[in-house]
Structure formats: structure tokens, C-alpha cells
């Protein structure tokens, strides 16, 4: 996948979500607004990280690292 296209795509998705929720966003309380923006921001940040470093270790690798010894005990390999 080309980098610029993916980046543009994620920006479009984030902007679309924002525009779609704008009427509800206006009515929402401060806390909801903050959560909404933080979650969107987190999504955008994660998207940028994944676009530039697709192989960055994720939660799956963490979980695998923690529980693999148990899997070996039960000989699940």
C-alpha cells in the first residue's frame, strides 16, 4: 500500500467521522466532547504510526510474550 494514499485515507476517515457526529458533538457535554476528540486523536496517531512503521510490535506480540511459556508447558506448539 502506498504511504501517501493510506495517510490521506485515514485523514478522510477521521474528518468524515467528525463531520458525521458534528450535530451530536455540539449538543454533548464537555466530558463527552473531550473523550470523542481524544479517541479520534489516538486513532489518527496510531494510524500514522502503523503507516510509517507497519511492523511495530503490537498487543498481540505482548500477549504472546507473556503467555507463550504457558503454551509450551501444555505443548500446544
Amino acid at each position, binding site marked *: *500500500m502506498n504511504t501517501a494514499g493510506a495517510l490521506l485515507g485515514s485523514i478522510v476517515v477521521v474528518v468524515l467521522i467528525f463531520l458525521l457526529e458534528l450535530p451530536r458533538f455540539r449538543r454533548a457535554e464537555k466530558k463527552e466532547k473531550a473523550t*470523542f476528540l481524544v*479517541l479520534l486523536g*489516538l486513532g489518527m496517531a496510531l494510524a500514522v504510526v502503523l503507516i510509517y512503521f507497519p511492523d511495530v510490535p503490537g498487543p498481540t506480540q505482548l*500477549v*504472546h510474550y507473556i503467555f*507463550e511459556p504457558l*503454551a509450551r508447558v*501444555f505443548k*500446544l506448539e
Partner: protein
Amino acid sequence: MEKGKISALQLAMMLYPAIIATAILLVPAITAHHAKQDMWLSPIWAAVTGVITVFIAVRLFNYYPQKTAIEYSEQIAGKWLGKFIGFVFLFFYLHVSGIIVREYGEFIIGNFFIRTPLLFIMGSMILVCAFAVRGGVEVVARLSEVAVPVVIVVIALFIIMLIPDMEIKNMFPIFEHGIMPSLKGAIIPQSWFSECFLIAFLLPYVANQKDGQKYALFSVAAICSTLVVVNFTVLFVLGNITARFVYPVMSAVRYISIADFLEHLEAFVMAIWVAGAFLKIAVFYYVLVLSTAQWLRLSDYRLIVFPIGFLILLFGNWSAPNVMELSHFLGTSTPFYLNTVQTVIPLLLLLGAKWRHRGKKA
């Protein structure tokens, strides 16, 4: 926050696809790898975890009526530790939702839409689920009520149509190496059964709560019998090569050929799996969104549905580099992951709740 009410039967109908949808996708191959011809027995051992998890969730709910797991973990473990446990649940459901979406996407791409980008398949599914989740728990429950009977009927039809291809002798010798292979084969499916803990988030919205436990156990029994029948079918049709397929049920259904006319029915397999996966993702997605809102004490969860959907999409992309890695992960460390979060942590919470209520009548 959530004003909708569902019935206990609807709860059971939400639980059924939430476990079945992916349990008949990749799991039969992993079970077959360990249990060989005893693979039909494994789901029965596995259901024990389901029963235990349901009991834990219901007991906790009886201690803290009208509260979900996120809310009572704070009351049991104190503010900070409770928040941390809540965060573990949130992260877990985000990660697992991502993995489920990925499983679904890989299945569709591997079998049907070979040239469609994975992100598009996953994204469109999440978008549909997002609309269902925004409708609230009632909408998800009614969708399950509509789709689950269809899924069951189609699975039953496949099994009936496969009867001419079945070889009963594939299941012999029973217990060739004792009972251990079937127990080992149960490790993976039993972790799927731990997903019954989803009811801990849904019980407060059940109208007839006294029946909650009965219907949840009924659902576990239905899931268990479906898995047993599906494993029997796969075993009878494919025999000892079952473990070599990635999607054994899919491969078995390709054998259907009635009067040289009714063939290539795997498109129907895709149809029911899309329906099942949709419900599974919708239930997980709903629980994730609701828990996030409760964890942050928001007054409405609808605003955060789409941002969380975007995160699920990213996690689905992030969870594994390819389907082989995903299958390897699901076959090795996943069972311990699922069990730790959905059985062991609730058990510790239950012990904590018992300790807090000591001397008092529950």
C-alpha cells in the same frame, strides 16, 4: 446511559453467535490437530469453562445488581485497582474485537474476495456494526433474534446434505491414546467458551433477570451441541486430514454434491458466516463502547461509537502480519489470554466480593 431492555432469550441469542461465529471457523482444525479422531469429544470438556464462567458472572451480578463488570470491579477492588482492572477489560475487548475482525477479513479474502483489500472488507463490516451499536442493546438483540435461527437452520441443512459423504469409521478407534488427546484438544475451544463472560456486561439490561442464568446456560448447551455436531461432520467427511485445512468446515461443505446439480454451496457458508461474524463483532463492539463510557463515567455512549470503530479497524490491522501468524497465535497463547481475562480475573473479583460481603447475607 443504556435505557434499552432485552429479554433473557435475546441474551442467549446474542451469546450464541458471539461464540459460534469464529469457533467453527479456525477452531476445528486446531482441535483436530491435538485430538485427532476424538475431536468430537473436546467441545463437551470445553463447555465446562462456559458453565463456570456463567456461574461466576451471575454470582457477581447477584452481589452487585444492575451493575456491569466495569462498575463493580471498582466497588470490589477500590478506586485505583478497580480502574486498572476496568482498563484491562477495555484493552482486552479492543484487542479481541480487532482480532475477530481480522479473522473475518482473512476468511473472506482467503476464500472469496481474493483481490479486495483487507482494510476495505474489515472497514465495511465495522461500519455496519457501528450503526447497529449506535442503535443500542435492543437493536443488537433483535438483529440476533432475526439472524440466529437462520444460521442454525443453514448449518443443519449443510449437515443433512453432507450425510452421503460421511464415513462413520473415521471416528474409530475411540480413545486410541486415552482421554488426554481430547482434553488437550479442548484447550482452545474452552477459551472460546470463556467469552460467556460477555453476559456480565449485558445482564443489567435483561428484563426478566431471574431467567438470566437459565438462558445463559441454555445458550452454553446449544453452543456445545453445535460444536459437537460440526466436529462430528468434519471428522466424518474429512477424516484424519482435518488438521491440514485452515477452514475445515468450508472444505467439508465443498464435498456437497446432490444429483450432480446442487454443488458449490460454500457461498452459503460465507452468507451465514458473514451474518454470524456481524453479530459477534456487534456484541463485542457494543460491550467495548458501553464499557468505555462507563469507565470514563460518560452520560452517553453514542458519540464514541465511530472513533472506537476506527480504533478496532487499526487493531485488526495491527494484530497480526498475516493469517498464518494469526492462526499460530490463536493456537498457542490465545487460550491463556482469554481465560486469564475472562475467567481468572472475574473469579478473583468474585472472591473479593465474597470477602467484602462476609458476615452479610448475599
